């Protein structure tokens, strides 16, 4: 019995190995219909992409959601009353980065034989819409919001990574986990550290009777890229 199971497993594996080739042979044989229109099993899919795809699609959509939110925050700092060009720039950069990372991640998903689904979004992110949320925040609150958002993004990347590193034949996919490591987690670490540092500085600077000069200087340094 055992031998049979193992043998049949081998058979399945053997068939799975040359799907594409078999289809091609079938399609090219003389008996085949001249106008072969069926789709061949020649996709780029292998490894864990099928399992990880929904999480990646979701992650990509979250990039766009956050990109637009950062754009609104940036817009708020650019009005004539706030007039904080440095904070405008900080949040515009966050928005731009999320946007372009989203595009690159779509390309990545496609490169693994996947496809994008723009409707997929995490339940908790979807729920955010139910409550009234303001993106017109003062400086420290905006940095705080961004820090929380980025930690969430980082943890989401960790969760995708854990899917792809499970030591299970259907899940283990070093290519995906390496992509997440190279393209996402280190960037997130740097960003989180930067925002946490800003939160520290602003908290210290605002602990005074009048914070307007502190904010003016901080903003100016942000604007001129003189903060790390």
């Amino acid at each position: 019995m055992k031998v049979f199971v193992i043998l049949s497993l081998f058979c399945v594996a053997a068939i799975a190995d040359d799907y594409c080739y078999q289809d091609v042979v079938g399609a090219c044989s003389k008996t085949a219909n001249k106008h072969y229109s069926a789709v061949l099993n020649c996709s780029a899919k292998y490894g864990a992409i099928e399992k990880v795809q929904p999480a990646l699609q979701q992650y990509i959509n979250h990039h766009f959601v956050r990109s637009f939110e950062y754009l609104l925050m940036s817009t708020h700092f650019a009005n004539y009353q706030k007039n904080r060009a440095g904070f405008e720039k900080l949040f515009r950069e966050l928005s731009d980065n999320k946007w372009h990372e989203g595009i690159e991640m779509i390309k990545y998903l496609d490169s693994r034989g996947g496809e994008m689904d723009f409707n997929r979004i995490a339940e908790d992110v979807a729920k955010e819409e139910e409550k009234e949320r303001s993106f017109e925040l003062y400086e420290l609150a905006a940095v705080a919001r961004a820090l929380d958002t980025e930690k969430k993004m980082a943890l989401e990347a960790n969760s995708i990574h854990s899917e792809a590193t499970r030591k299970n034949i259907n899940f283990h996919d070093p290519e995906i986990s390496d992509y997440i490591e190279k393209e996402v987690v280190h960037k997130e670490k740097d960003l989180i550290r930067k925002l946490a540092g800003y939160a520290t500085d602003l908290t210290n600077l605002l602990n005074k009777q009048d914070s307007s000069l502190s904010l003016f200087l901080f903003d100016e340094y942000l604007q001129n890229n003189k903060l790390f």
Partner: protein
Amino acid sequence: MKSFLLTVFFVGVISLGSAQLQCANQELNIPKDWIDMKEVCINKMRDQVTEELRASMQYMAMGAYFSKDTVNLKGFSDMFFKSASEEREHAIKLISYLLMRGELTSKVSDLIKRNLIPKTTTWVNGVSALKDALKLEASVTKKIREVIKVCEDGSSFNHYHLVDYLTGDFLEEQYHGQRDIAGKISTLEKMHKDHGALGEWLFDKKLISGEV
């Protein structure tokens, strides 16, 4: 000396106890005479931001579709992803204009809503996507013209400067862009008629190298 130290200590404790950060600045009193954009025009501009972003996400879906392994038309994909970012830039330019005119001091949070999910996500071939792109551009152009109309309501007000900007900058780009896409459709469709897959494949490679 002791009592002095004690006083210092107490003052310290009090200031620690009332450690409230001063996060927001005071209310300002800036003259409003220079802020003269009319509500109807502002709202039209705000809607146009959404239109541009919607177009952007539609292009995003095109980019995503054409980079799939089973479609594999990188030239089309790159072109559409680039268009997606360009449409987003347009939205940002409109926002910047409103900010320059003293607008967007409030109600910023609902300027962009989560209603931008692309409607179409698959296409029969490159030609059909290009045709969709042309229709999309035409509809954006029409919307910009509507903004212009509303913002130059000759009788009561006329936002000359904005209208000039939309005409000289936005419409200029729209018309050039439309002509470009129409030309591409024409070239591709001619080849596509008799050379189907080969025509499309060749056109795609030419797109990558910028030769069509």
